[in-house]
């Protein structure tokens, strides 16, 4: 490799969970992946009047925060609450807090829009004379990017460092980097990392204004791909140092690579220069050669330019034989939650010998040279690389592997 990057000590994903339109918790998510089921539906969200498909999580509106969290009430925190209740995640955090002390556990949550929907709704209720927002509107605990990290640290009774990482669609991949550094610097012994992003009008109308939304369910890497489908998700992992005596199917975070395109605010570098650097750095941090990766979970948003640029970057690092796919045809693009959601999908791939085929894609674009798989493959998966790229040219690649 042409450059050196610091190697990192692996971390153990002691617990992990994800809630998206394909499932609430690990088992339903795995079942959907095995069935190649997509959760995308025609958009009927709120008062949105756009010809597009979305990945909406059922039951978010009906989820209630505990009474003492009234100020935090918004769709984003309800989605966080719903996801927290799956797979015994809260109990695992409680156990970690008992072991390490609540001050020694950090909270690192990626989000792009947090609870901005609350402000969008409040703007409709402005006082006709003064223009003031309704008295009931709370900015800090709903709209502000930190609101979801603040909600989670309080909900989980954690008193260590807490922060929101907001780097557009790479946000919840980059949280793994922040947590890893704090653990390595011995500021903390464990970290709750994750991503939460929920449907709102800013992203639906915003991506529409950039003509980046497909009218159909998105088709990553398809010849006819014509844009994204916006989804929502919350996904969390509890990270700790690697203990002795792990089961062979325990999941480890092996490498992280981050880079910036230094090219354009909303378009990827045409040859995927930044993406390539992120993948190479992740391999270098993990001390692995490209051939050690069995499956790549692509960023794969299904816009013509994103997929082309990512395919070039993947090919330049891995060649044309490493199986890869995007699960966004199933989940939609969950924006700031995508990194964490796809980390969990990667972990499920490792534990279940599954390379998930890309849902919705009918005809793989022959000009995209990466080895895109449409059908599920059942074969041992020892290491997975997951890509997340965002507006502003921010890139993050993560490598996960089985303990044995």
């Amino acid at each position, binding site marked *: 490799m042409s450059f050196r990057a610091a190697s990192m000590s692996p971390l153990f994903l002691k617990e992990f969970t994800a809630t998206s339109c394909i499932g609430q918790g690990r088992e339903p998510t795995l079942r959907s992946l095995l069935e190649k089921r997509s959760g995308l539906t025609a958009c009927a969200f709120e008062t949105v009047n756009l010809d597009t498909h979305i990945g909406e999580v059922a039951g978010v509106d009906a989820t209630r925060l505990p009474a003492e969290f009234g100020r935090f009430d918004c769709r984003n925190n309800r989605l966080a609450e719903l996801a927290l209740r799956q797979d015994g995640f809260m109990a695992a955090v409680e156990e970690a807090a008992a072991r390490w002390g609540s001050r020694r556990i950090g909270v690192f949550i990626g989000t792009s829009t947090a609870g901005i929907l609350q402000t969008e709704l409040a703007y409709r209720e402005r006082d006709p004379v003064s223009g*003031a927002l309704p008295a009931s509107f709370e900015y800090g605990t709903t709209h502000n990017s*930190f609101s979801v990290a603040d909600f989670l640290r309080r909900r989980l009774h954690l*008193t260590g*460092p807490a922060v929101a990482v907001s*780097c557009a669609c790479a946000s919840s991949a980059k949280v793994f980097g922040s947590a890893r*550094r704090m653990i390595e610097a011995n500021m903390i012994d464990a970290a709750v990392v994750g991503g939460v992003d929920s449907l709102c009008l800013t992203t639906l109308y915003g991506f529409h204004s950039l003509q980046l939304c497909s009218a159909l369910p998105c088709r990553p890497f398809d010849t006819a791909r014509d844009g994204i489908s916006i989804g929502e998700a919350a996904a969390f992992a509890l990270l700790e140092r690697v203990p002795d005596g792990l089961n062979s199917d325990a999941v480890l975070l092996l490498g992280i690579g*981050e880079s910036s395109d230094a090219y354009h605010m909303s378009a990827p570098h045409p040859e995927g220069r930044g993406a390539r650097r992120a993948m190479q750095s992740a391999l270098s941090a993990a001390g692995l050669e490209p051939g050690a990766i069995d499956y790549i979970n692509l960023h794969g948003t299904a816009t013509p330019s994103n997929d082309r640029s990512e395919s070039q970057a993947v090919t330049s690092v891995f060649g044309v034989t490493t199986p890869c796919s995007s699960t966004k045809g199933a989940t939609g693009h969950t924006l700031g939650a995508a990194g964490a959601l796809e980390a969990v999908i990667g972990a499920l791939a490792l534990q279940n010998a599954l390379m998930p085929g890309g849902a919705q894609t009918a005809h793989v674009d022959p000009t995209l040279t990466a080895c895109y798989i449409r059908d599920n493959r059942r074969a041992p998966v020892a290491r997975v690389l997951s890509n997340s790229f965002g507006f502003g040219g*921010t890139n993050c690649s993560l490598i996960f592997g089985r303990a044995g």
Partner: protein
Amino acid sequence: MAAYISGIGVLGPGFDSWPHAAAVLSGRRAYEPKPTILPMPTLLAPTERRRTGRVVKLALAVALEAAAQAGAEPGELKSVFSSSGGDGHNCHEICLSLSLAGREISPTRFSNSVHNAAAGYWSIATGAERESTVLCAFDASFCAGLLEALAQVAVDEEALLLIAYDSEYPEPIHAKRPIPDAFGAAFILTPHRQAGSLARIEATLAREPVDLLADRELEALRVSIPAARCLPMLRRLAMREGGRTVLEYLDVADTVVQVDLCN
């Protein structure tokens, strides 16, 4: 976690540079609060320059000042950006448009709405391809950025640029989040002492009384803009006075910074 401060940039109400701020904070010059003057980001191409909002101008200006002072090449630096709210004016325009019948958002407004817009423009302007992260911790954003930056320097042993910056929301959000003006501070943090290093800082978390500023107006600035929560540390550096300073962080923990001067 420790690092050397090897360059500083400051811009805010009544502060037009770090030397100016240092003169005020050390009492050599009176504090005269006046609206923050943001320079045009000449680093950016004219088309991009027109698209940038106040927070981007602010972040780029303080980052450049800090890099120049440290003699660092901006394009080679890793960076940590931390802001409590991003571009409030842009956010207001989007929410306003979405409340009207047509719901038309301009593509540029949407691209600029991401919290990492300033980091994106910085990397485009300087050609910085290194890792860059963008954080938010509401009122705790300064210390959240400092802790992330110190962890990076400690673990990766490389120089890094930390930029804490905030600007105001217009009405009606302003009434709910009354940040009065723009304030930014940037620091070049290095793992080792270098020519021009001002001080070594080491941070720990504890629950201790936060350092306040004796001057009423400076204290008002510290409290009203999250990025200005660094002022007690800047004051110590300006006074050339080593020792402990306690910066406001979360309700459950403050950040104790031990400042040891380099000469």
